[in-house]
């Protein structure tokens, strides 16, 4: 088995496995993470999104080999209760979910957006999240939370 090396949430990581394995399976399987969620297995719903480099990608249809030597960030890598990322604070403040299953992928997509566009317009937020599906109807709260996080980050 070849060894694949990448940085996972800032930490150097290496794993000996079939490089054609799907990134989501590796993250949730041997690496034991639960931030990225399985939703469809076809890159359509976005529950499994992680940031690779600067872009949010669907890890359910991304082969492991394609992240070799790259930075991979999952929800676990955004922040912690002790040191929450502005987006996490904003999602708490806006109570921005119903069931919250899609939120792991949504937060990751939003984080990628704010890296690229620190002060997005509402339209830009909606467009950036268009590939994330939410079935409960929390979209407006989520958009408000992302805009709040952008404002907060700009102030601090």
């Amino acid at each position, binding site marked *: 088995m070849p060894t694949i090396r990448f940085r996972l949430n800032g930490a150097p990581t290496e794993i000996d496995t079939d490089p054609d*394995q*799907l990134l989501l*399976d590796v993250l*949730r*399987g041997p690496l034991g*993470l*639960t*931030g990225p*969620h*399985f*939703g*469809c*297995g*076809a890159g*359509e*719903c976005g*529950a499994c999104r992680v940031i690779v480099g600067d872009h949010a990608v669907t890890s359910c249809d991304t082969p492991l080999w394609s992240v070799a030597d790259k930075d991979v960030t*999952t*929800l*676990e890598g955004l*922040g*912690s*209760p002790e040191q*929450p990322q502005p987006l*996490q604070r904003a*999602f*708490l403040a806006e*109570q921005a*979910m*119903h*069931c*919250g*299953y*899609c*939120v*792991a992928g949504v*937060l990751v997509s939003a984080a990628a957006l704010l890296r690229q566009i620190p002060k997005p317009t509402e*339209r830009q*937020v*909606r*467009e950036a*999240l*268009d590939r*994330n*599906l*939410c*079935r*409960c*109807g*929390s*979209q*407006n*709260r*989520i*958009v408000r939370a992302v805009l709040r996080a952008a404002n907060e980050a700009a102030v601090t």
Partner: protein
Amino acid sequence: MNSPVPTLPFSLAANPRLSSWIKFAADGRVTVSPGKVEIGQGIVTALAQIAADELDIDIGRVRMVRATTAASPNEGVTSGSLSIQHSGRALRHACAEIRQIFLAAASERLGVESGVLQIEDGTISGLGNVTTSYWELADEISLDRDATPGAKPKAIAERALAGQSAQRIDIPDKVFARRRFIHDTALAGLLHGRVLRPEHARAKLADLKEDAARAVAGFIAVVRDGSFAGVVCETEAGADAALKALRKGASWSEGEKLPDEDDLAAFLRAQPVESTVIDTRTAAKSASKARTLKRQYIRPYIAHASIAPSCAMAQWNGEDRVHVWTHSQGVYLLRSDLSLVLKLPIEQITVEHLEGAGCYGHNPADDVALDAVLLAKAASGRPVRVQWSRADEMTHGPFGAAMAIEVEADLDATGDIVEWRHSIWSNGHAARPGRGTKPTLLAGYELETPFPIAISGNPPQANGGGGDRNSIPLYDFPAWKIESHRLLTMPVRTSALRTLGAQGNVFAIECFLDEIAAERGEDPVAFRLRHLKDERARDVVRAAAKRAGWKPTPKAGTGYGFGYSRYKNTGAYCAAVAEIEGDEDIRVKKLTLAVDVGEAINPDGVINQIEGGAIQATSWVLKERVRFDRERITSNSWTDYPILRFSEVPEVEVEVIQRSDIDPVGAGEAAHGPVTAAIANAVFDCLGLRVRNLPITRERLIAAMEES
């Protein structure tokens, strides 16, 4: 005058033992154990608020316990917007009684009359420095006693938390990626299972070659029983690979024919049915009918389409005891059906709730639990997690039933309604497990010795009805007849989807009213108010209209529509105004709603539920329809079953009319009907087209144009 005999709230009467609801833990926490479950609706937080209020403790001390058949009160199913009514009232009453019991004990211990005692965050103090607490007294007070009807909950003015927007207690875990969902729960030695399901409807498994599946790394077992087949592997990826191999090695019989998707009304109206007269009203004096209007409205099959595939875990202890982890809405009901399939006494089955994604009704949560139990039999005592695929989730679970609704109105010479008739043709809207003598779990239909497929039924009107839910007019028409025709065949599996028949019926009633008002040249809000006597109904109608500036001056390409309903005729009042843009397609720009749930325990929770309901209803109206050809369901991915996306979601404004003196009812299903009708009526306002066949897509606009 006799005062009414006090009675226990519904759920408390069924589960009177106080200790089954509340326990004081040694660490200064209070354990609250409701029988209702969190499905993303925030119920657990609202219940924590109620308990903390009634016991006078900080909400941070409350530890909410997940429902389990091992310990929790049996509150049936978490559905029908009844959790606040059932669990909330029971908890409030139980806590009130517990508070009294502890005050009496504290009075004895402290030698102070209980009237002067005060409770602050669980510390009970009298005059001076004498204090005790729930936790000090807990050792000597047994709550293993039954609730009595006399306990008096606090007056509204004394409640500190109810009516305040509290932060939901489940959200931090979900924001910080802490394990909370069943999909993420780790058990020692966990194995992974997948089940093979046919592509064609109800096809039988004729032959299965297992060799390739057995060769997959980490393979544990193939399980086959009749047409039920599945694999168990060490890893999820392995289970997926083994399932793929199994699929290649499977041959199937032909399936059963599905209806013509393009003529659902003809199909629904041609089937054998059980007909029920739901309600009649006879006019006090006869009025002269000048003419009759008749319209037919159609709602398609709608998928629950949870964002997470259904998932369950099971672990056998020997051959006759099994523990099941599930996101089912009813742990006791699921246990009953598991007991029927397994032929095991219920005492040998424990069913425990873990959170899943939103389910919006009876989705495959229960089915996958039986799958897990069957596969775990081959796992030598190790736990097995089974997760459905996206395609199976969109294909093999029950759907919300398609409906054909014919509404007729006899009008007098001025165009006013003198008689109203409403007839529904639809499969039943309920086939939840645990209700009958036969199980309703999918795998039960697939076994070598199968159980008969349960044809879905309808709950009685007293429980809100099923296909007939919200079919009785809320308006003071002089005469009416309401009939429901429940299909006795069921080629497409149906069961409870959020609102049951209410979305279809409110769509029909509110659109037909809009049409009658328009023919009279009467404003639709004025028309409704003229026919509504209930002041709470009038208030939500006026509040929504006022907030939306009814009726805004029309602009080209824009339309406004109105819809109103009281969910189940006995629940939450809700009125909606839709603003849309229409040309070749419809875009919903804004929804303005007013809602009255009585006492809103957590107002932000109510707003969240109404917003979510309004957005989901918009998705149903503009996009959703289960697709099939004559052999199979074809809408088995998000591409083939599109739902509303972020950029398509309308702005939603919600006004909550707070009525602290009226017992609370649920909010989760109040918005769907009014929003559906408001959008359809706005389409008419904008384009002059009456679309009576959902969803309102481009092709349906063209069809309506051709009709008119």
